């Protein structure tokens, strides 16, 4: 059966670029023959990647605007919200453009973007974070159950000890137990987690560099 074989250009590109950059980590620039070339080539690819990352962010913003614009034009439930998103996005961009060309970006008294940020973005985001304490409190209450396992009890106990030891000055808790828990036991656990994360990252990166995973669609 004849198969239509397409050369995986994208995969070749990703593997080649990734390979060069990876080697740049482990082969010093002072290494003979290839050290300098690899370092230069890897650095160049890093620069390209930085620019592409910025472009990718811009593409994401354009897509966000397009999606909300489409929602705004079509009748829907969140039509007004999408319209607000598009309008405020354009307005903020215009304000920033004004700030940039007028040199007001670094002037806190004149910067329009600073004004918008300080009085709209900051209050909303901080308030959203403040809401979290109520939800977390409710979650902590629900953790108390009759049929609680040992590990759930340990979790709750450590949580209470660290919370109280952080905010209050409780003898022996604040100066002994809480530091011991945080600096020894918790570090042991988080170190194991970090090692696992590192191994997982390594495996994922190798899968990409070997062409097994192709998230770019190649």
């Amino acid at each position, binding site marked *: 059966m004849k198969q239509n074989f397409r050369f995986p250009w994208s995969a070749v590109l990703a593997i080649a670029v990734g390979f060069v950059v990876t080697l740049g980590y482990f082969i010093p620039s002072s290494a003979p023959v290839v050290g300098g070339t690899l370092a230069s080539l890897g650095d160049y690819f890093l620069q390209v990647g930085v620019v592409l990352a910025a472009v990718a962010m811009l593409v994401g913003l354009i897509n966000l605007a397009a999606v909300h614009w489409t929602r705004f034009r079509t009748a829907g439930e969140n039509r007004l919200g999408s319209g607000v998103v598009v309008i405020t996005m354009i307005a903020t961009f215009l304000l920033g453009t004004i700030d940039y060309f007028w040199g007001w970006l670094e002037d806190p008294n004149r910067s329009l973007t600073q004004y918008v940020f300080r009085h709209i973005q900051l209050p909303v985001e901080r308030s959203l974070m403040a809401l979290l304490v*109520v939800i977390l409190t409710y979650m902590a209450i629900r953790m*108390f159950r009759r049929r609680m396992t040992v590990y759930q009890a340990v979790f709750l106990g450590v949580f209470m000890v660290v*919370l109280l030891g952080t*905010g209050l000055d409780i003898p022996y808790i604040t100066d002994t137990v809480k530091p011991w828990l945080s600096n020894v036991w918790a570090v042991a656990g*988080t170190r194991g987690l970090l090692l696992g994360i590192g191994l997982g990252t390594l495996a994922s990166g190798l899968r990409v560099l070997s062409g097994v995973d192709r998230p770019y669609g190649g």
Partner: protein
Amino acid sequence: MVDKPREVRCPMCGRLNPAENDVCQYCEARLKPLTAPLGDAPSGANQPDEQDWLGDLRSKGDLSGGDEGEWEDDGEEPLDDQRDLLDWLASIDGEEAETPSPPAEQSDSEVEPAAAEAQEEVDLSAWLASLDEEQTTTPGQPEVELPDWLREYRSQEAAEPEAESAESLPDWLTGAEELPAEEEESEPDFLKDFAAEDGVEAGEVGSTATPADPEEYSGWMAEFPEAKLPSAELESEETSPEGDFELPAWLLDEEAEPEEPEQDTEIELPDWLAEFDEEGVGAGESVSPAEKPVGAEEPTVEYELPPWLLEEEPETDLAAESPKAELPDWMQAAPLEVDEVKGPPVEQFPEEQFEDLEPSQEELLLEESGEEKAGETTDDVGAVVDDEYFIPEEEAEPGDSQPGSLEETELPAPSQETAAWLSELASEVEGKPGESFLEEAPEAEALSSAFDLESFPDEELEGINLTEEPEWLAEVSQDAALQAEEQRRGFETEEGGEEDLPRAELPEWLAAMRPVDAIVTPPTPSRPSRVEIETSGPLAGLQDVLPAESQIFQISKPDARPSGLEISESQQKHIRMLEEMLNTEEQATPVSIPLPLPYPRLFRWFITLILFLAALYALWSGTSLADRPLPGLETQATYAAINRLPSGAPVLIAIDYEPGLSGEMDVIAQVLLDHLMIRGASLTFVSTTPTGPLQTENLLAEMLTRHNYQRAGQFIHLGYIPGGPAGLQTLVSFPLQLILPQTYSGYSAWDPRQTPLLGIETLNDYAAILVITDRHEAARGWIEQVGPTLVDTGLIFGSSAQVEPLIRPYYGGMVDGLVAGQAGGAAYERLTGVPGQAGRQWDVFSLLVMVSAVVIVLGGLVNLVLPDRSQSSSLGGE
């Protein structure tokens, strides 16, 4: 259930399969029968079943080139020359079709299957052609071995031009009238061959010799549930059918009750041939074989039948129940009128073709060449196969598929030519050409020339019980019809799965032959047009060899494991384990989900109210519940690291936190910046988050109110570094001037007048790097990308409390200092002694901590007191 035209129903399991499939995808049963069922579209596959019995009559050793005919179950297909032989059969009907009679009107819509019928005509002719040993009278006839009595019929037919069409009648039909008397003494070759093969002596008619090998039976006889066929008929690689077969009674001699002898005619027909005549074929010239016992007054020709032909057929006595036993039941059709037959279009068979035929014969011809009658033919397999061939005329109901009717079998549909030759033969015998046998009872004379026993040599007739009704003929009855109908219903019910009718226990071979009512009749002959020649095996060189599998020899569903496989205990253990794993994979793990507290919204409002009141109280009263916490080791290290900085030391500050946690992070950032500014460090601000520059400017706006720091003199803001870890790696790899050429506001950052960047080329030129972040990814990025490259530059972190446990493992290695959370900021303020926001908020914070802890504990106790209302549910089940 409506059958979709694009799907066919498996006769075995009843499941729907795509129409293009040849084999059921579930049970591997053959969907498209190799032999065409009665009433189905004419197909070559049907014909082999019909022609098998004749093919078996041929000499086993005289097979030549696959000239058994397509109807042979051994998979052989007739040679092309055989088709020529039978063309005359087809041409007879074809000529007659031009002048349709009222009862045989043919609608235009029914002309279409003519092409398919033509193919079947050839196939049907093959069995007749195969009997022709000598192509003497009919040109183009294949060289097949025919018994003498058949040969003479053929010659007689050749002498009758009007009786011939493009294809010629077989000799035994054409030369029926001229069958010499002396031939009655000679054993038909087909019988001789059988005798020679099976070692049955001539004259052992009626013996109940056990067939050599029941599994070797093949051909049409295999369709009879109680027929036992001779061996060695199967020449293909097909497996022999399971179960034993018993010969129909008419092939037996002794046990069959002699019928009332009819008037002798010149030609004495064997029983099975005499039954063609409803009232006695060739009444004047032939004797109904059912009525004329072998060995009766008239000299009969005895044929040396093989044992398989001699076995009794005790269960069925179709002949006895047949009111008109002259014709064999398999030739009798249920409806007397042609137009009542649901088989082929009646118009294809003009009346003249049937004038000498028994209704059953006519039905055979009609049904075998007609279109498929869905739902009528396939479900009567359970009926006694004998019944399918021999049905009393009165049992036939118009429009119904009678059990045991020809349309329910898989006999090849007779072609028009076939019907024509029979009618012609009948007319020759009777001398009543042009008369429809429907209008007048076809007399035995019509076929007397063919079935005149006197014309048969004794040797040929030996062993054939021509005097008595075969049992299996006699037993055709309404009960059999009902039984078949019930079984058909049962078959359908089994498909629907709702009734409790017991399913008939069919032998496997018989069940495999069950006509499929859901098979869509292809408009074109199912027989492939091109001839395929077998290239390997014992059948090499033969044309149109049937494939290994056959509808008759149904391949059962294979076992789960090969019988010869040895499995050890440990392997079985592993198998069980794997099965359990696979079974548990489908089972959702029940998850115990605690039900929410009663009135959750009210509960949240209560929590919010409590916290609000506590905070307001703390703000209003200024109550201090706890002093500022003591700094930890990491906080002290940070303080010490900054304290060691000389005045004007360049410090890179990364503001990498989001506006959401700026309430906490601003506290930490301010205390650290306060300390740095107090130390007079030259600050460079960067950010790896898009909102970082805004955060930096907001922070600077606050700091500049307390410290007299000048932009571009003591601090500089270089803006955003995209790319995350990759961007940080560029900071390490490239000179900063290349990476950060401009300030946040767009001015050139590397102006010599920009003192904060004097002498700065790489990151290692900085005295310290302070990263203030609330995200673990940003912290890890700085640690992993920048940390290993730093030599003498300290890496200090100001982090949120939520990130501190994940940064702490790096402390002591690449992280030189850590100030975490509200408490860390307050503790650092305690170290610096500079009052700041951390101290102002600490009282509120500490009170809120205490209140929160109390609320959590009290609420938890209430939850403990309440009954356990958790519920188990499977993931994704709801």
